[in-house]
């Protein structure tokens, strides 16, 4: 396992800047999740580390040595693609064996059998080993594709939205499984997703990317509780943080134009009146859609609330975030 260090990585595709001077250190044994919407540069970052694409500028170091000019094979990385990319002409077993049989590894047959059996067990695909890769369901394919990375013992695992095409139950199971595999083996893992639950539950560190720039890097709690900008704050939190003009509540510091309120930063039953527009009972919690001085606010309340639409509710902010006109956090 190894530390991955990106220094000054830039990459453009024609006129599109995919990565803009990204510096990031993925500590040895950490689980780093890259967050950001489509086009933020998450996948490009993975491809830079894997060697599938070369940066226009900057350098990638794995375990202290520069990866410049090295092929993906020489970098000793394992990658899970978003689109499974199982070899369709091979069986599930052959797919899992493929990396072990490579000229880089040349594993002994007994070792191959042991590892493939082990991984198949973890991913619950033992009974499918002799199926053709194309005869699997989407979820099974993705598990095989994760398995193909796990059979190896690479310096770093790269995963590009590996769980995005799975159903909710499997996603929850594999989330736990991946996390425990990672923490047991001490593997370094760089993981791309736009699912914030994956980020919150699995990550030791989260990197927030915005248009090719790394805007914040820290633990999930740091990003959640101490975001550097409106953008970073909006990446995490369900329901999303409410961003309102700073003037709707009093007490904004000078220079603040926007106020950011997560549900727990809104105290109910005190302060000023607002109107309840909609009440959504989600079972374990209830969401309230509120109108406050012509602004929409979404917050969370008690699961068994008696509030109905049309009711009045008093609210007041509690330790809110303040942002300036550019969305940069100032308090």
């Amino acid at each position, binding site marked *: 396992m190894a530390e991955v260090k990106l220094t000054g990585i830039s990459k453009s595709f024609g006129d599109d800047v995919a990565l803009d001077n990204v510096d990031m250190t993925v500590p040895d044994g950490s689980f780093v999740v890259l967050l950001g919407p489509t086009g933020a540069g998450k996948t490009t970052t993975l491809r830079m580390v*894997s*060697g*599938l694409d070369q940066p226009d500028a900057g350098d990638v170091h794995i375990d202290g040595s520069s990866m410049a000019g090295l*092929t*993906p*094979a020489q970098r000793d*990385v*394992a*990658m899970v*693609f978003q*689109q499974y*990319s199982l*070899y*369709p*002409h091979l069986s599930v077993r052959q797919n899992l064996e*493929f*990396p072990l049989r*490579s*000229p*880089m*590894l040349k594993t002994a047959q007994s070792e191959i059998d042991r590892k493939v059996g082990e991984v198949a067990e973890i991913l619950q695909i033992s009974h499918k080993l002799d199926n053709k890769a194309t005869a699997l369901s989407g979820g099974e394919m993705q598990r095989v594709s994760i398995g*193909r990375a796990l059979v*190896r013992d690479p310096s770093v695992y790269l995963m590009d939205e590996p769980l995005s095409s799975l159903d909710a139950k499997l996603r929850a199971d594999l989330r736990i499984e991946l996390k425990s595999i990672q923490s047991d083996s001490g593997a370094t893992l760089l993981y791309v997703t736009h699912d914030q639950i994956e980020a919150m539950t699995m990550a030791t560190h989260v990197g927030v990317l915005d248009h090719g720039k790394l805007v914040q890097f820290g633990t999930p709690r740091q990003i959640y509780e101490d975001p550097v900008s409106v953008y970073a704050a909006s990446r995490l939190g369900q329901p999303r943080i409410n961003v309102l003009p700073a003037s709707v509540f009093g007490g904004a510091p000078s220079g603040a134009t926007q106020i950011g309120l997560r549900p727990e930063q809104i105290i109910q039953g005190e302060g000023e009146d607002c109107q309840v527009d909609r009440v959504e009972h989600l079972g374990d919690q209830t969401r309230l859609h509120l109108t406050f001085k012509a602004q929409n606010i979404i917050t969370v309340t008690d699961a068994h609330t008696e509030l109905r639409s049309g009711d009045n509710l008093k609210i007041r902010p509690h330790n809110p975030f303040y942002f300036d006109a550019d969305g940069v956090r100032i308090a």
Partner: protein
Amino acid sequence: MSFSVTEPSKGTKWFAGILVVGYAIITIIPLLWIIATGFKSPTDSIAYPPVIVFEPTLEGYVNLFTDRTRATEQMLEDAGPPQTWYEEIARERGTVISGPSRYGERFLNSVIIGFGSTALCMILGTMAAYAFSRFRVPLKDDLLFFILSTRMMPPIAVAIPIFLMFRQLGLNDTHLGMILLYTAVNLSLSVWLLKGFIDEIPIEYEEAALIDGYTRFQAFYKVVLPQAATGIASTTIFCLIFAWNEYAFAVLLTSGEAQTAPPFIPNIIGVNGKDWPAVAAGATIFLVPVMVFTVLLRKHLLRGITFGAVRK
């Protein structure tokens, strides 16, 4: 009344079925005719109206594979009774077999040149198509058009320059010369067809193989080739059919050593008058390799022909 876009009605299916069967019969008649003529006597072969029921004989095949001389009564007596069934057939026509004909050699030439050029063409074509499909080749479109343009003129248009070049290089009437020539002519077809097939294979498979510890060439060999098998099979058949049947270049550039079967078969006509059964026998045997090859790969061929019609 109900209409379905996907499922044709029963009537339509019957109509289409009859049409296909009718077309198949029309196309297969000349083939059956040739095969039948090979087993006819010379008289039956030119009878009008054509004889459908006839007494089969192997005379055509014997004539195809042997050289015979007209024998006098005296010669026949001296030679004694015929030793083999084919000698017997020759005797019936008042001839004795003087030796094997050149058909065997010519057929072998066809095999060497046809399969040789097809193999070479596929090796080069697959690699070129892969490069055009995957890499940023400077002037890619122009190069592809240039490659295609080599196929635009009829062979006869370039035959004379090629003849002169071959004479200078000592390639006239050599196996190597013919293999190179057919490879060059077929390469445009194979590059274009195969590029289409390789384009359809998602690049992620190779990227996965690169990450899994393989080199670019190993990824090509282990991941791309197996998935392009269908395209390779059907392109192989197209190339083989061209190289196998090619006549114009073969007539001009080969005469003995490397002559293929197509220019040789018409020669048979001249040996002993118009020997149509022998010609038909030559044509029938000539059909066999390509037919066997096509039948072996028919599954791929069908997919290859319909390829590109529907985009998945």
